[in-house]
Protein backbone atom coordinates (compact mmCIF):
# COMPACT_ATOMS: atom_id res chain seq x y z
CA UNK A 1 0.00 0.00 0.00
CA UNK A 2 1.40 3.40 -0.97
CA UNK A 3 1.60 5.70 2.00
CA UNK A 4 1.06 9.40 1.73
CA UNK A 5 4.21 11.11 2.99
CA UNK A 6 2.28 14.09 4.29
CA UNK A 7 -0.05 11.88 6.32
CA UNK A 8 2.83 9.85 7.76
CA UNK A 9 4.55 13.08 8.79
CA UNK A 10 1.39 14.42 10.43
CA UNK A 11 0.81 11.17 12.33
CA UNK A 12 4.45 11.17 13.51
CA UNK A 13 3.98 14.68 14.88
CA UNK A 14 0.87 13.63 16.80
CA UNK A 15 2.71 10.66 18.30
CA UNK A 16 5.59 12.99 19.23
CA UNK A 17 3.01 15.23 20.94
CA UNK A 18 1.76 12.20 22.89
CA UNK A 19 5.17 10.93 23.98
CA UNK A 20 7.58 13.85 24.35
CA UNK A 21 5.88 15.12 27.54
CA UNK A 22 6.15 11.64 29.08
CA UNK A 23 9.75 11.31 27.91
CA UNK A 24 10.61 14.60 29.63
CA UNK A 25 9.21 13.21 32.91
CA UNK A 26 11.43 10.13 32.57
CA UNK A 27 14.54 12.28 32.02
CA UNK A 28 13.79 14.69 34.88
CA UNK A 29 13.40 11.79 37.33
CA UNK A 30 17.17 11.17 37.11
CA UNK A 31 18.30 14.76 37.76
CA UNK A 32 20.48 15.59 40.78
CA UNK A 33 19.13 19.05 41.57
CA UNK A 34 16.33 19.40 44.11
CA UNK A 35 14.06 21.18 41.61
CA UNK A 36 12.90 19.69 38.35
CA UNK A 37 14.95 20.75 35.36
CA UNK A 38 15.32 19.72 31.75
CA UNK A 39 17.91 18.93 30.52
CA UNK A 40 19.24 17.50 33.79
CA UNK A 41 22.57 17.94 35.51
CA UNK A 42 24.23 14.80 36.84
CA UNK A 43 22.55 11.44 37.22
CA UNK A 44 20.92 10.02 40.29
CA UNK A 45 18.46 7.42 41.54
CA UNK A 46 17.87 9.29 44.79
CA UNK A 47 14.35 10.46 43.86
CA UNK A 48 13.31 6.84 43.41
CA UNK A 49 14.70 6.11 46.86
CA UNK A 50 12.74 9.13 48.04
CA UNK A 51 9.48 7.64 46.77
CA UNK A 52 10.07 4.45 48.76
CA UNK A 53 11.02 6.39 51.89
CA UNK A 54 7.81 8.40 51.74
CA UNK A 55 5.43 6.42 53.97
CA UNK A 56 2.39 8.34 52.68
CA UNK A 57 2.98 7.08 49.14
CA UNK A 58 3.40 3.46 50.28
CA UNK A 59 0.23 3.60 52.42
CA UNK A 60 -1.84 5.28 49.73
CA UNK A 61 -0.58 2.81 47.11
CA UNK A 62 -1.77 -0.12 49.22
CA UNK A 63 -5.08 1.63 49.88
CA UNK A 64 -5.56 2.27 46.14
CA UNK A 65 -4.90 -1.41 45.36
CA UNK A 66 -7.34 -2.56 48.04
CA UNK A 67 -10.07 -0.11 47.04
CA UNK A 68 -9.73 -0.85 43.32
CA UNK A 69 -9.76 -4.60 43.97
CA UNK A 70 -12.70 -4.76 46.36
CA UNK A 71 -14.77 -2.15 44.51
CA UNK A 72 -14.33 -4.11 41.27
CA UNK A 73 -15.15 -7.44 42.94
CA UNK A 74 -18.31 -5.88 44.40
CA UNK A 75 -19.17 -4.50 40.97
CA UNK A 76 -18.67 -7.98 39.46
CA UNK A 77 -20.82 -9.64 42.14
CA UNK A 78 -23.81 -7.42 41.42
CA UNK A 79 -22.92 -6.66 37.79
CA UNK A 80 -22.68 -10.21 36.40
CA UNK A 81 -26.16 -11.31 37.55
CA UNK A 82 -27.59 -8.00 36.35
CA UNK A 83 -25.90 -8.32 32.93
CA UNK A 84 -27.17 -11.90 32.68
CA UNK A 85 -30.73 -10.80 33.47
CA UNK A 86 -30.47 -8.01 30.91
CA UNK A 87 -29.04 -10.20 28.14
CA UNK A 88 -31.13 -13.33 28.76
CA UNK A 89 -34.61 -11.99 29.28
CA UNK A 90 -36.89 -9.69 27.44
CA UNK A 91 -38.73 -8.19 30.37
CA UNK A 92 -40.51 -4.93 30.82
CA UNK A 93 -38.21 -1.96 31.33
CA UNK A 94 -35.11 -3.82 30.14
CA UNK A 95 -33.65 -0.94 28.09
CA UNK A 96 -34.41 1.51 30.85
CA UNK A 97 -32.72 -0.70 33.42
CA UNK A 98 -29.62 -1.10 31.26
CA UNK A 99 -29.31 2.66 30.85
CA UNK A 100 -29.81 3.03 34.58
CA UNK A 101 -26.90 0.68 35.27
CA UNK A 102 -24.71 2.68 32.88
CA UNK A 103 -25.83 6.05 34.30
CA UNK A 104 -22.87 6.58 36.69
CA UNK A 105 -20.81 7.40 33.56
CA UNK A 106 -23.16 10.26 32.63
CA UNK A 107 -22.98 11.92 36.05
CA UNK A 108 -19.75 13.99 36.29
CA UNK A 109 -17.17 12.49 38.65
CA UNK A 110 -16.99 15.57 40.88
CA UNK A 111 -20.79 15.48 41.25
CA UNK A 112 -20.75 11.80 42.24
CA UNK A 113 -17.90 12.61 44.64
CA UNK A 114 -19.63 15.61 46.16
CA UNK A 115 -23.03 13.92 46.59
CA UNK A 116 -21.37 10.89 48.21
CA UNK A 117 -19.37 13.22 50.46
CA UNK A 118 -22.64 14.78 51.66
CA UNK A 119 -24.36 11.40 52.05
CA UNK A 120 -21.62 9.09 53.30
CA UNK A 121 -19.28 11.42 55.14
CA UNK A 122 -21.65 14.07 56.50
CA UNK A 123 -24.96 12.21 56.91
CA UNK A 124 -24.02 8.56 57.51
CA UNK A 125 -20.52 9.29 58.89
CA UNK A 126 -19.16 6.02 57.53
CA UNK A 127 -15.40 5.32 57.82
CA UNK A 128 -13.23 6.55 54.93
CA UNK A 129 -12.58 3.04 53.60
CA UNK A 130 -16.29 2.23 53.20
CA UNK A 131 -16.92 5.59 51.56
CA UNK A 132 -14.13 5.14 49.03
CA UNK A 133 -15.25 1.57 48.38
CA UNK A 134 -18.81 2.66 47.55
CA UNK A 135 -17.62 5.58 45.44
CA UNK A 136 -15.29 3.38 43.43
CA UNK A 137 -18.00 0.74 43.08
CA UNK A 138 -19.98 3.38 41.16
CA UNK A 139 -16.92 4.02 38.97
CA UNK A 140 -16.45 0.29 38.25
CA UNK A 141 -20.01 -0.91 37.69
CA UNK A 142 -20.63 0.57 34.20
CA UNK A 143 -17.49 -1.16 32.84
CA UNK A 144 -18.75 -4.52 34.13
CA UNK A 145 -22.24 -3.98 32.72
CA UNK A 146 -20.90 -2.91 29.32
CA UNK A 147 -18.15 -5.51 28.80
CA UNK A 148 -19.78 -8.54 30.47
CA UNK A 149 -23.07 -7.55 28.84
CA UNK A 150 -21.27 -7.43 25.49
CA UNK A 151 -19.90 -10.95 25.82
CA UNK A 152 -23.27 -12.29 27.03
CA UNK A 153 -25.04 -10.78 24.04
CA UNK A 154 -22.71 -12.72 21.74
CA UNK A 155 -23.36 -15.98 23.59
CA UNK A 156 -25.66 -18.60 22.05
CA UNK A 157 -28.04 -19.40 24.90
CA UNK A 158 -29.08 -22.72 23.34
CA UNK A 159 -26.13 -24.29 25.19
CA UNK A 160 -27.81 -23.30 28.43
CA UNK A 161 -31.12 -24.73 27.29
CA UNK A 162 -29.31 -27.96 26.38
CA UNK A 163 -27.98 -28.14 29.94
CA UNK A 164 -31.51 -27.61 31.33
CA UNK A 165 -32.87 -30.37 29.10
CA UNK A 166 -30.13 -32.70 30.33
CA UNK A 167 -31.37 -32.15 33.89
CA UNK A 168 -29.12 -29.35 35.10
CA UNK A 169 -30.66 -26.84 37.50
CA UNK A 170 -30.80 -23.20 36.39
CA UNK A 171 -28.09 -22.23 38.85
CA UNK A 172 -25.98 -25.25 37.88
CA UNK A 173 -26.26 -24.40 34.20
CA UNK A 174 -25.28 -20.80 34.90
CA UNK A 175 -22.11 -21.74 36.79
CA UNK A 176 -21.09 -24.70 34.59
CA UNK A 177 -22.10 -23.46 31.14
CA UNK A 178 -22.56 -19.68 31.06
CA UNK A 179 -19.75 -18.48 33.34
CA UNK A 180 -16.96 -20.54 31.67
CA UNK A 181 -18.01 -19.05 28.33
CA UNK A 182 -17.72 -15.45 29.44
CA UNK A 183 -14.48 -15.64 31.47
CA UNK A 184 -12.51 -13.50 29.02
CA UNK A 185 -15.22 -10.83 29.14
CA UNK A 186 -15.14 -10.95 32.93
CA UNK A 187 -11.35 -10.57 33.02
CA UNK A 188 -11.42 -7.73 30.49
CA UNK A 189 -14.10 -5.89 32.46
CA UNK A 190 -12.18 -6.54 35.68
CA UNK A 191 -9.03 -5.00 34.19
CA UNK A 192 -10.86 -1.96 32.80
CA UNK A 193 -12.77 -1.33 36.02
CA UNK A 194 -9.68 -1.90 38.16
CA UNK A 195 -7.52 0.51 36.13
CA UNK A 196 -10.19 3.20 36.09
CA UNK A 197 -10.84 2.86 39.80
CA UNK A 198 -7.10 2.92 40.54
CA UNK A 199 -6.65 6.08 38.45
CA UNK A 200 -9.77 7.87 39.70
CA UNK A 201 -9.29 11.34 41.18
CA UNK A 202 -12.56 13.28 41.44
CA UNK A 203 -14.48 10.72 43.52
CA UNK A 204 -11.50 9.97 45.78
CA UNK A 205 -10.75 13.65 46.24
CA UNK A 206 -14.05 14.16 48.05
CA UNK A 207 -13.99 10.94 50.07
CA UNK A 208 -10.43 10.82 51.35
CA UNK A 209 -10.06 11.42 55.05
CA UNK A 210 -7.36 13.08 57.15
CA UNK A 211 -4.15 11.13 56.51
CA UNK A 212 -5.98 8.57 54.39
CA UNK A 213 -5.92 9.00 50.62
CA UNK A 214 -5.54 6.99 47.46
CA UNK A 215 -2.26 7.17 45.54
CA UNK A 216 -3.49 9.58 42.82
CA UNK A 217 -4.88 12.03 45.39
CA UNK A 218 -1.68 11.76 47.46
CA UNK A 219 0.35 12.43 44.32
CA UNK A 220 -1.95 15.28 43.37
CA UNK A 221 -1.54 17.10 46.68
CA UNK A 222 2.22 16.49 46.54
CA UNK A 223 2.36 18.07 43.06
CA UNK A 224 0.36 21.07 44.29
CA UNK A 225 2.87 21.92 47.01
CA UNK A 226 6.22 20.54 45.80
CA UNK A 227 8.25 20.78 42.64
CA UNK A 228 10.96 18.18 43.07
CA UNK A 229 11.83 15.13 40.95
CA UNK A 230 10.14 12.77 43.44
CA UNK A 231 6.97 13.33 41.42
CA UNK A 232 8.83 12.43 38.22
CA UNK A 233 10.18 9.25 39.81
CA UNK A 234 6.76 8.16 41.05
CA UNK A 235 5.27 9.03 37.64
CA UNK A 236 7.86 6.80 35.95
CA UNK A 237 6.99 3.98 38.35
CA UNK A 238 3.29 4.39 37.52
CA UNK A 239 4.11 4.35 33.80
CA UNK A 240 6.12 1.15 34.28
CA UNK A 241 3.16 -0.39 36.09
CA UNK A 242 0.94 0.59 33.13
CA UNK A 243 3.39 -1.08 30.72
CA UNK A 244 3.45 -4.30 32.80
CA UNK A 245 -0.33 -4.31 32.98
CA UNK A 246 -0.67 -3.72 29.23
CA UNK A 247 1.82 -6.53 28.55
CA UNK A 248 -0.18 -8.91 30.75
CA UNK A 249 -3.46 -7.97 29.06
CA UNK A 250 -1.90 -8.36 25.61
CA UNK A 251 -0.55 -11.83 26.49
CA UNK A 252 -3.84 -13.07 27.94
CA UNK A 253 -6.80 -11.36 26.32
CA UNK A 254 -5.23 -9.13 23.69
CA UNK A 255 -5.32 -5.37 24.08
CA UNK A 256 -8.17 -5.17 21.61
CA UNK A 257 -10.43 -6.68 24.33
CA UNK A 258 -10.28 -3.45 26.33
CA UNK A 259 -10.59 -0.86 23.55
Amino acid at each position, binding site marked *: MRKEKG*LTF*FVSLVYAFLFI*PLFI*IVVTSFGENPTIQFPIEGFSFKWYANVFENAAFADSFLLSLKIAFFATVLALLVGIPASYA*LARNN*FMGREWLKNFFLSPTIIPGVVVGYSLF*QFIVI*TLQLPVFQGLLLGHFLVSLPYIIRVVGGSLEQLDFSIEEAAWTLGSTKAGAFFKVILPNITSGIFASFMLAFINSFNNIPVSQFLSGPGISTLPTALMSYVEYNYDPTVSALSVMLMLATIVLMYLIEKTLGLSSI*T
Partner: protein
Amino acid sequence: MSSKSIPYLLAAPGFILLIVFLVLPLVSIIWPTFFDGNLTFASYIAFFQDSYNVSIFMRTLRISLIVTFFCALLGVPVAYYIARADKKFRSLMMALVLFPLLTNSVVRSFAWINILGQKGVVNNLLLATGIIETPMSLLYSEFAITIGSIYLFLPLMVITLVGIIENIDTEIMEAAETLGANRLTAFLKVILPLSVPGIIVGSILVFTGTLTAYTTPQLLGGNKNMMLSTFLYQNAMTLGNWTNASVIALIMIVTTLIVMRIFNLIASVIDKRGEEQHA
Protein backbone atom coordinates in the same frame (compact mmCIF):
# COMPACT_ATOMS: atom_id res chain seq x y z
CA MET B 1 -40.91 -18.10 42.84
CA SER B 2 -42.31 -17.42 39.42
CA SER B 3 -39.80 -17.44 36.58
CA LYS B 4 -40.98 -13.98 35.54
CA SER B 5 -39.53 -12.42 38.67
CA ILE B 6 -36.08 -13.99 38.22
CA PRO B 7 -34.56 -11.24 36.03
CA TYR B 8 -35.76 -8.59 38.46
CA LEU B 9 -34.25 -10.52 41.38
CA LEU B 10 -30.91 -10.86 39.59
CA ALA B 11 -30.78 -7.17 38.84
CA ALA B 12 -32.07 -6.16 42.29
CA PRO B 13 -28.77 -5.94 44.28
CA GLY B 14 -27.16 -3.60 41.73
CA PHE B 15 -30.39 -1.66 41.36
CA ILE B 16 -30.73 -1.11 45.09
CA LEU B 17 -27.06 -0.09 45.48
CA LEU B 18 -27.45 2.47 42.69
CA ILE B 19 -30.67 3.84 44.18
CA VAL B 20 -29.14 4.18 47.65
CA PHE B 21 -25.65 5.42 46.72
CA LEU B 22 -26.21 7.30 43.46
CA VAL B 23 -29.83 8.47 43.14
CA LEU B 24 -30.56 9.18 46.80
CA PRO B 25 -27.36 11.24 47.39
CA LEU B 26 -27.98 13.18 44.16
CA VAL B 27 -31.60 13.93 45.03
CA SER B 28 -30.66 14.94 48.54
CA ILE B 29 -28.17 17.56 47.31
CA ILE B 30 -30.34 18.85 44.43
CA TRP B 31 -33.69 18.93 46.27
CA PRO B 32 -32.79 21.72 48.73
CA THR B 33 -31.68 23.97 45.85
CA PHE B 34 -35.32 24.11 44.67
CA PHE B 35 -37.21 24.03 47.95
CA ASP B 36 -36.99 26.35 50.91
CA GLY B 37 -40.57 25.66 51.90
CA ASN B 38 -41.83 26.64 48.46
CA LEU B 39 -40.61 25.84 44.98
CA THR B 40 -37.96 28.37 44.06
CA PHE B 41 -35.36 28.90 41.36
CA ALA B 42 -33.67 31.66 43.34
CA SER B 43 -30.35 29.82 43.77
CA TYR B 44 -30.05 29.29 40.02
CA ILE B 45 -31.09 32.82 39.12
CA ALA B 46 -28.60 34.18 41.64
CA PHE B 47 -25.89 31.93 40.22
CA PHE B 48 -26.34 33.21 36.69
CA GLN B 49 -26.68 36.84 37.79
CA ASP B 50 -23.16 36.79 39.17
CA SER B 51 -20.76 37.65 36.36
CA TYR B 52 -17.90 35.73 38.02
CA ASN B 53 -19.98 32.51 37.96
CA VAL B 54 -21.02 33.14 34.38
CA SER B 55 -17.39 33.66 33.36
CA ILE B 56 -16.52 30.24 34.82
CA PHE B 57 -19.47 28.64 33.05
CA MET B 58 -18.49 30.24 29.74
CA ARG B 59 -14.81 29.34 30.19
CA THR B 60 -15.80 25.72 30.77
CA LEU B 61 -17.87 25.64 27.56
CA ARG B 62 -15.19 27.48 25.57
CA ILE B 63 -12.36 25.17 26.62
CA SER B 64 -14.50 22.06 26.03
CA LEU B 65 -15.39 23.25 22.54
CA ILE B 66 -11.80 24.10 21.55
CA VAL B 67 -10.49 20.83 22.99
CA THR B 68 -13.13 18.82 21.09
CA PHE B 69 -12.29 20.62 17.86
CA PHE B 70 -8.55 19.98 18.13
CA CYS B 71 -9.00 16.37 19.23
CA ALA B 72 -11.11 15.75 16.11
CA LEU B 73 -8.68 17.66 13.88
CA LEU B 74 -5.67 15.71 15.15
CA GLY B 75 -7.50 12.46 15.78
CA VAL B 76 -9.21 11.82 12.44
CA PRO B 77 -6.03 11.57 10.29
CA VAL B 78 -4.32 9.44 12.96
CA ALA B 79 -7.28 7.07 13.24
CA TYR B 80 -7.51 6.85 9.45
CA TYR B 81 -3.81 6.00 9.29
CA ILE B 82 -4.09 3.35 12.03
CA ALA B 83 -7.23 1.78 10.57
CA ARG B 84 -5.49 1.19 7.24
CA ALA B 85 -2.12 0.02 8.57
CA ASP B 86 -1.26 -3.67 8.36
CA LYS B 87 -2.16 -5.79 11.34
CA LYS B 88 1.11 -5.87 13.25
CA PHE B 89 1.86 -2.16 12.85
CA ARG B 90 -1.75 -1.38 13.71
CA SER B 91 -1.54 -3.23 17.06
CA LEU B 92 1.65 -1.34 17.91
CA MET B 93 0.11 2.04 17.06
CA MET B 94 -3.02 1.22 19.08
CA ALA B 95 -0.92 0.12 22.06
CA LEU B 96 0.98 3.42 21.89
CA VAL B 97 -2.30 5.37 21.97
CA LEU B 98 -3.68 3.20 24.75
CA PHE B 99 -0.63 3.76 26.96
CA PRO B 100 -1.26 7.44 27.77
CA LEU B 101 -4.96 6.69 28.19
CA LEU B 102 -4.19 4.16 30.93
CA THR B 103 -1.62 6.42 32.59
CA ASN B 104 -2.87 8.44 35.55
CA SER B 105 -4.22 11.89 34.73
CA VAL B 106 -2.07 13.48 37.44
CA VAL B 107 1.01 12.21 35.61
CA ARG B 108 -0.29 13.52 32.30
CA SER B 109 -1.05 16.97 33.75
CA PHE B 110 2.26 17.05 35.62
CA ALA B 111 3.98 16.52 32.24
CA TRP B 112 2.68 19.93 31.16
CA ILE B 113 3.79 21.63 34.37
CA ASN B 114 7.32 20.59 33.35
CA ILE B 115 6.84 21.99 29.88
CA LEU B 116 4.95 25.23 30.57
CA GLY B 117 6.27 26.24 33.99
CA GLN B 118 8.46 29.28 34.72
CA LYS B 119 11.52 26.99 34.68
CA GLY B 120 9.89 24.68 32.18
CA VAL B 121 11.15 23.32 28.88
CA VAL B 122 9.58 26.01 26.69
CA ASN B 123 10.87 28.93 28.75
CA ASN B 124 14.36 27.40 29.03
CA LEU B 125 14.49 26.89 25.29
CA LEU B 126 13.32 30.41 24.48
CA LEU B 127 15.65 31.96 27.08
CA ALA B 128 18.65 29.96 25.86
CA THR B 129 18.09 30.95 22.26
CA GLY B 130 17.59 34.56 23.26
CA ILE B 131 14.09 34.84 21.80
CA ILE B 132 12.78 36.09 25.15
CA GLU B 133 14.61 37.66 28.06
CA THR B 134 12.26 36.99 30.94
CA PRO B 135 10.29 33.75 31.40
CA MET B 136 6.71 33.84 30.11
CA SER B 137 3.91 32.72 32.40
CA LEU B 138 2.29 30.00 30.33
CA LEU B 139 1.18 27.84 33.23
CA TYR B 140 -1.96 28.57 35.28
CA SER B 141 -3.79 29.87 32.24
CA GLU B 142 -6.68 28.91 30.02
CA PHE B 143 -4.10 27.99 27.39
CA ALA B 144 -2.47 25.50 29.78
CA ILE B 145 -5.82 23.87 30.62
CA THR B 146 -6.68 23.66 26.93
CA ILE B 147 -3.45 22.01 25.80
CA GLY B 148 -3.44 19.73 28.86
CA SER B 149 -7.00 18.64 28.06
CA ILE B 150 -6.24 18.03 24.38
CA TYR B 151 -3.33 15.90 25.58
CA LEU B 152 -5.63 14.09 28.02
CA PHE B 153 -8.45 13.30 25.59
CA LEU B 154 -6.78 12.86 22.20
CA PRO B 155 -6.13 9.11 22.79
CA LEU B 156 -9.81 8.59 23.61
CA MET B 157 -10.83 10.31 20.37
CA VAL B 158 -8.38 8.23 18.31
CA ILE B 159 -9.46 4.90 19.82
CA THR B 160 -13.15 5.71 19.33
CA LEU B 161 -12.54 6.73 15.71
CA VAL B 162 -10.40 3.72 14.79
CA GLY B 163 -13.28 1.42 15.73
CA ILE B 164 -15.60 3.23 13.31
CA ILE B 165 -13.22 3.98 10.41
CA GLU B 166 -12.09 0.35 10.40
CA ASN B 167 -15.59 -0.69 9.46
CA ILE B 168 -15.68 1.54 6.39
CA ASP B 169 -15.48 -0.72 3.38
CA THR B 170 -12.00 -0.40 1.84
CA GLU B 171 -13.60 -1.11 -1.53
CA ILE B 172 -15.47 2.20 -1.36
CA MET B 173 -12.16 3.96 -0.86
CA GLU B 174 -10.51 2.05 -3.69
CA ALA B 175 -13.48 2.71 -5.94
CA ALA B 176 -13.17 6.45 -5.33
CA GLU B 177 -9.50 6.32 -6.22
CA THR B 178 -10.08 4.18 -9.29
CA LEU B 179 -12.68 6.67 -10.49
CA GLY B 180 -10.00 9.32 -10.48
CA ALA B 181 -10.24 10.95 -7.08
CA ASN B 182 -6.84 11.65 -5.57
CA ARG B 183 -6.09 10.50 -2.04
CA LEU B 184 -7.00 13.79 -0.43
CA THR B 185 -10.27 14.18 -2.37
CA ALA B 186 -11.18 10.57 -1.62
CA PHE B 187 -10.45 11.20 2.04
CA LEU B 188 -12.46 14.42 2.20
CA LYS B 189 -15.42 13.28 0.11
CA VAL B 190 -15.68 9.61 1.06
CA ILE B 191 -13.90 8.73 4.29
CA LEU B 192 -14.66 11.89 6.24
CA PRO B 193 -18.46 11.80 5.72
CA LEU B 194 -18.49 8.09 6.59
CA SER B 195 -16.50 8.83 9.76
CA VAL B 196 -19.07 11.33 11.04
CA PRO B 197 -20.76 8.85 13.41
CA GLY B 198 -17.36 8.14 14.96
CA ILE B 199 -16.51 11.82 15.20
CA ILE B 200 -19.86 12.42 16.94
CA VAL B 201 -19.33 9.62 19.48
CA GLY B 202 -15.74 10.74 20.06
CA SER B 203 -16.79 14.38 20.38
CA ILE B 204 -19.43 13.53 22.99
CA LEU B 205 -16.80 11.70 25.04
CA VAL B 206 -14.20 14.47 24.68
CA PHE B 207 -16.61 17.37 25.22
CA THR B 208 -18.31 15.92 28.30
CA GLY B 209 -14.92 14.65 29.50
CA THR B 210 -13.35 18.12 29.32
CA LEU B 211 -16.50 19.70 30.75
CA THR B 212 -16.24 17.55 33.87
CA ALA B 213 -12.49 16.85 34.19
CA TYR B 214 -11.08 17.84 37.55
CA THR B 215 -7.36 17.03 37.63
CA THR B 216 -6.20 19.05 34.62
CA PRO B 217 -7.89 22.40 35.47
CA GLN B 218 -6.86 21.96 39.11
CA LEU B 219 -3.18 21.45 38.29
CA LEU B 220 -2.80 23.62 35.18
CA GLY B 221 -5.43 26.33 35.70
CA GLY B 222 -4.74 27.64 39.15
CA ASN B 223 -7.23 29.69 41.16
CA LYS B 224 -7.72 32.36 38.52
CA ASN B 225 -8.89 30.00 35.81
CA MET B 226 -11.55 27.87 37.44
CA MET B 227 -13.76 25.50 35.52
CA LEU B 228 -17.10 24.22 36.82
CA SER B 229 -15.50 21.08 38.33
CA THR B 230 -12.81 22.94 40.28
CA PHE B 231 -15.33 25.64 41.23
CA LEU B 232 -17.64 22.95 42.64
CA TYR B 233 -14.77 21.48 44.64
CA GLN B 234 -13.76 24.89 45.97
CA ASN B 235 -17.32 25.71 47.02
CA ALA B 236 -17.86 22.33 48.66
CA MET B 237 -14.55 21.74 50.41
CA THR B 238 -12.81 25.12 50.83
CA LEU B 239 -15.60 27.67 51.10
CA GLY B 240 -18.17 25.33 52.65
CA ASN B 241 -20.85 26.87 50.42
CA TRP B 242 -22.88 23.71 49.96
CA THR B 243 -25.82 25.39 48.27
CA ASN B 244 -23.58 26.81 45.57
CA ALA B 245 -21.80 23.46 45.19
CA SER B 246 -25.14 21.71 44.67
CA VAL B 247 -26.25 24.35 42.17
CA ILE B 248 -23.03 23.82 40.19
CA ALA B 249 -23.57 20.04 40.39
CA LEU B 250 -26.98 20.27 38.71
CA ILE B 251 -25.70 22.77 36.14
CA MET B 252 -22.94 20.29 35.24
CA ILE B 253 -25.39 17.39 34.89
CA VAL B 254 -27.85 19.40 32.79
CA THR B 255 -25.09 20.84 30.57
CA THR B 256 -23.72 17.33 29.97
CA LEU B 257 -27.16 16.07 28.95
CA ILE B 258 -27.81 19.06 26.67
CA VAL B 259 -24.42 18.66 24.98
CA MET B 260 -25.11 14.96 24.33
CA ARG B 261 -28.52 15.84 22.93
CA ILE B 262 -27.06 18.51 20.60
CA PHE B 263 -24.37 16.18 19.24
CA ASN B 264 -26.96 13.46 18.63
CA LEU B 265 -29.19 15.99 16.84
CA ILE B 266 -26.28 17.01 14.62
CA ALA B 267 -25.68 13.33 13.87
CA SER B 268 -29.31 12.73 12.88
CA VAL B 269 -29.40 15.85 10.67
CA ILE B 270 -26.27 14.68 8.84
CA ASP B 271 -27.72 11.16 8.53
CA LYS B 272 -30.91 12.49 6.97
CA ARG B 273 -28.98 14.60 4.49
CA GLY B 274 -26.99 11.52 3.47
CA GLU B 275 -30.21 9.59 2.83
CA GLU B 276 -31.64 12.38 0.70
CA GLN B 277 -28.52 12.40 -1.41
CA HIS B 278 -28.78 8.67 -1.96
CA ALA B 279 -32.47 8.89 -2.89
